[in-house]
């Protein structure tokens, strides 16, 4: 028995509706995408473990934030908004300066973010977070 080849039959996927399907998908992804990028202040935490690095005391500036939201730098209470200027001056005198930031446990996060913002404004790259609540 000879099976004849059916050469004449055209097998085709209809592509007329392709554009419609793609449109539908496009609309779905358009709706689900949210392009708003999150913004914030970057910080890299110190690595774990209590590795003591000897830093000459002249390269450290202590910055405290108390529960009332006041900032104290080198035993002087200063306005948070003026911190950028003060730190900038200090960095100018000593580019190796490390700012050690200590916060009281009852202080508000708001103040902390403002202080970090001021440090960024002053261009302080070396920020250390001292842990206040040792267990």
């Amino acid at each position, binding site marked *: 028995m000879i099976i004849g080849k059916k050469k004449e039959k055209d097998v085709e996927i209809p592509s007329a509706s392709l554009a419609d399907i793609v449109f539908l998908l496009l609309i779905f992804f358009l709706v689900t995408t949210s392009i708003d*990028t999150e*913004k914030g202040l970057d910080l890299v935490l110190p690595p774990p473990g209590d590795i003591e690095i000897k830093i000459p005391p002249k390269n450290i500036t202590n910055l405290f934030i108390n529960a009332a939201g006041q900032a104290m730098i080198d035993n002087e209470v200063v306005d948070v908004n003026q911190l950028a200027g003060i730190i900038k001056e200090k960095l100018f005198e000593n580019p190796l300066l490390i700012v050690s930031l200590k916060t009281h446990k009852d202080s508000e996060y708001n103040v902390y973010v*403002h202080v970090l913002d001021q440090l960024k404004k002053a261009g302080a790259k070396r920020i250390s977070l001292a842990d206040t609540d040792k267990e």
Partner: protein
Amino acid sequence: MEFKKKSNIKLAIPTASMPDIIFMLLIFFMVATVIRQYSGLKVELPDAAKIQKLAVSKRHISTIWVDKNSNVVMDDIPVKNIKDLRNLAYKKRAEDPQLIISIKADKYSKMSTINKIHQELRKASALRVNYSALPGEF
């Protein structure tokens, strides 16, 4: 003088390449979409001036919410004890070395909670954090 109307010129935008354009758009939005979205806690973010965009795409971000009653939620998992955060963060960090932790804390939350979170993140080696803030001068 007489003006003749040139009505015989056919004006048609070629539509042959339309599917291609739509395909391109489709591919763009498919790539840009990250479908998972967390609801988190209700927080009032602090404002800061020197904020910058996160350096990585949304895929590499885990979010920790802290509200003013010191409730902590990490990517929709409520964290009862802050000590549990270490395991959670460690797992995420192991899955994705590029991970950035975005901290969305209420501006009236206490630093003691934030400090504890810092300590746990340090122990989990998830060191890159980003404090979410709204643009603004205070």
